[in-house]
């Protein structure tokens, strides 16, 4: 397993920063995809923006952008009547079981 997946398994979302050019490397890797230098790992800023979403039965899923760069598809624990694209969301939990799982909640209010 990769560093990213190992940390996800423990419930931590870590990302890789380039030690040289300071680029955020996403998808996560041991080397920078800009200058190929080594990366250092840190916890992500959990607050991000909902780019677009759709719904499968009762489950809402969508593309979220974190730190202005990292895009991923996660589950959105938001009431379907309150959701809007562009809204502020934050990473609520993450895990790894056969694959990564990311869950987001609204920045303000409850769910």
């Amino acid at each position, binding site marked *: 397993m990769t560093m*990213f*997946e190992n940390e996800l398994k423990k419930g931590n979302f870590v990302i890789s920063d380039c030690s040289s050019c300071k680029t955020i490397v*996403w*998808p*996560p890797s041991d080397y920078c995809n800009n200058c190929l230098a080594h990366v250092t790992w840190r916890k992500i800023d959990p607050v991000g923006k909902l*780019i*677009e*979403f*759709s*719904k*499968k039965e009762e489950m809402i*899923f*969508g*593309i979220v952008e974190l730190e202005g760069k*990292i*895009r*991923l*598809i*996660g*589950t959105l624990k938001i009431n379907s009547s309150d959701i809007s*694209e562009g809204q502020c969301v934050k990473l609520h939990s993450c895990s790894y079981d056969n*694959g*990564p*799982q*990311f869950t987001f909640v609204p920045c303000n209010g409850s769910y």
Partner: protein
Amino acid sequence: MNKVAVVGYGNTKFSNEDKSIESLLTSATKSLFDNTKNIEQDDIDVVLVSTNDNTKYLSAILSELTGISPKIAHTVENLCSSGTNSIVSAYSYIVSGLADIALVVGADRYDCPGQILKWDVSRGEFMHPVFWASVFTKAHKREFKTTQEDLAAVSAKNHTNAKFNPHAYSNKTYSIDDVLQSKFVTDDLHLLDCSRPCSGASAVLLASENVAKKFEQPIWIKGIGQKTTSASLAKNKDLTTMTSTKIAAKQAFDMAKIQVNDIDVTELHDAFTICEIMALEDIGFVKKGDGASYVRNLYDTQDNKINPRGGLIGSGHPLGATGVAQVIEITQQLQNKAEKRQIKNANVGLVHNMSAAATSSTVLLFQS
């Protein structure tokens, strides 16, 4: 530069049959030999297999099973666009002078492992293509007021076109209402908005300019464009544009010195209905946002020049075979051999094939 032509082809029916990958590959190859005059196994310099199947060494296996001892033999895998990627590889072997005749056979089974986008952590648990397709669809609806009916028109049109494709998975036709009444996969996609995985194989024979003369009606590859922007979903900043398709199309048009208005017949990668609408816009048939009305008009006027064999939605989508099947359709159209699917006076054709949320695209241009 050495010119390269398509000089032969063979297909299996696309179905949900539980046939082995070897059997699919050999049936399409047999069909190619049956259809093509003046070809012997010993003439073939290159055998490329296009597949997402996990079986190893398939091009050597196919060669042995069909009595071919090629110079060059290997598999090409690039998910849903493996087919056109193999054709570009075969083209390059011929243009370089390493080969005169190349056989490209694409095949996959209904349970092909390429359908789950497992390698991309940015997709989270949403590894099935329906999830990215839903989000792309939602974004296009939001930005360009594309409706569920517009999307349904793509499916209704392509199923209607597939009626005259003897190799299509199904020859059943559906109205716009039928598509709208099919099961919801997500809030933005009905079941009939999606292409279906199936078992199938398609084969083409490519030849250098000198050798092509001994075959009937060679169809020339005039333009090639390919672009891979990423593997993950992460790089796609604009959800309503398929950037790799846009770049690949421009390369192909520049190479061929052909313009979009010159195209008579087109095969587009309609993995989902939204993909056909976006491809029409990104290749430049219409301006951004006009894809939906263009498709509605094609459907209303029963014009089959876009996806005449039924596209992926109408024909089925055996991943490794799809790009090859698209090239066969354009070849038949330009040879005036497409029977009930024939577009009148077709001289120039385009193929668009792509992978994984348009992270990689190929555009090919052909001329008779």
